[in-house]
């Protein structure tokens, strides 16, 4: 085939291109992933029964702050990674570590104020196993949605793009799971929420090169 023929072929039947489609597709995927995750949590696990108490609300807000912080920072970065050559600068990738760093510092402070006999309970909590399983499982749908959206674009760094798709999915999942979770301590959030979200990120990095090739 002559390249000239191909070029001539491509120049026919052009349609105006929507320049915002990358960002819009990602936002649609994020919204859909969030709704499904919320639905799964509400139906499968149920809202925590003591949600109206002040303590429960405060911790819900803390967990949401952590998760939403991760999701919004990761989304900004993923919109860059979705474009060819995007997201090559390392500095902005480090920004997503901020929520993890913040929760780690707060955990250490709260452990410092508590007697060491409470530490076990604060870190391990009651439902660590449920948290460890739920967040990655709930994350599957938002992850699939994020991968679908990124595939419509053209990422060139597949492992990193997969990692950020996993990070967003983990964050969305944690947001939903927070409505159910009754373990109210900062170290618990840092270890089990933070840990499972990191797990989702690693899984995304491993799957990225296979799922995102174009």
């Amino acid at each position, binding site marked *: 085939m*002559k390249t000239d023929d191909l070029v001539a072929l491509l120049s026919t*039947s052009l349609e105006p291109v929507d*320049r915002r489609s990358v960002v819009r597709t990602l936002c649609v995927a994020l919204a859909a992933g969030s709704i499904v995750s919320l639905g799964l949590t509400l139906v499968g696990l149920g809202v925590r029964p003591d949600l109206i108490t002040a303590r429960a609300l405060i911790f819900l807000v803390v967990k949401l702050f952590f998760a939403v912080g991760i999701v919004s920072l990761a989304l900004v970065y993923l919109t860059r990674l979705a474009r060819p050559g995007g997201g090559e600068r390392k500095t902005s990738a480090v920004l997503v570590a901020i929520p993890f760093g913040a929760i780690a510092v707060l955990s250490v402070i709260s452990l410092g104020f508590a007697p060491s006999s409470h530490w076990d309970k604060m870190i391990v909590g009651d439902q660590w196993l449920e948290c460890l399983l739920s967040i990655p499982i709930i994350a599957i749908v938002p992850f699939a949605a994020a991968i679908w959206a990124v595939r419509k674009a053209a990422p060139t760094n597949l492992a990193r793009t997969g990692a950020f798709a996993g990070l967003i999915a983990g964050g969305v999942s944690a947001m939903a799971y927070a409505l159910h979770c009754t373990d109210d301590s900062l170290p618990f959030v840092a270890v089990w929420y933070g840990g499972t979200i990191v797990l989702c990120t690693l899984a995304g990095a491993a799957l990225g090169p296979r799922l995102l090739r174009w």
Partner: protein
Amino acid sequence: MATHEIELKALMLASLDSDAASHHALFERLSGRLRAFYSGKLARIGRGAAEAEDLVQEALLAIHFKRHTYDPAEPLTPWVHAIARYKLIDFLRRTRTSLDDVPIDEADTMMAHDDNLSAESTRDLEQLMQRLPEKMRCSIVAVKLDGQSIAEAADRCGISESGVKVNIHRGLKTLAALIARETRT
């Protein structure tokens, strides 16, 4: 270098607004630069011009079908280079060539050279076209290869004018998918 960027970007912006002449001019220029880029790289590992041309066409298809991922706030050259580089790495992996044999990161050289001697790739357009559904093939052959107008093509293929446009559009996508599948196996 800087003037290339300004000219190419202007053509790209116009082609995003579906200006066919700009699109054509842009892709002609890009194919010259991509050809210089790929044949230079492939010559180092003893691959021929036809394989370089395969890559040129793959990159052009990618640039065309992924043009919505170009952010007009950014310069065009690095975006094109990122696609060209991605397709080169993909090719090297596919053919199990060591990435060490080919220096990948010479972004500045990408747009510097030009090779406008049109070449033939290893793909057979006729053969690929045979695999398209009848209406798509008819529309593309009529308008593109035989240079008929949309109205004439509609007459010849027995479909409406908007049908011709839709079939060309879909046919090109299918063609791109066929080319992609062929290179993968």
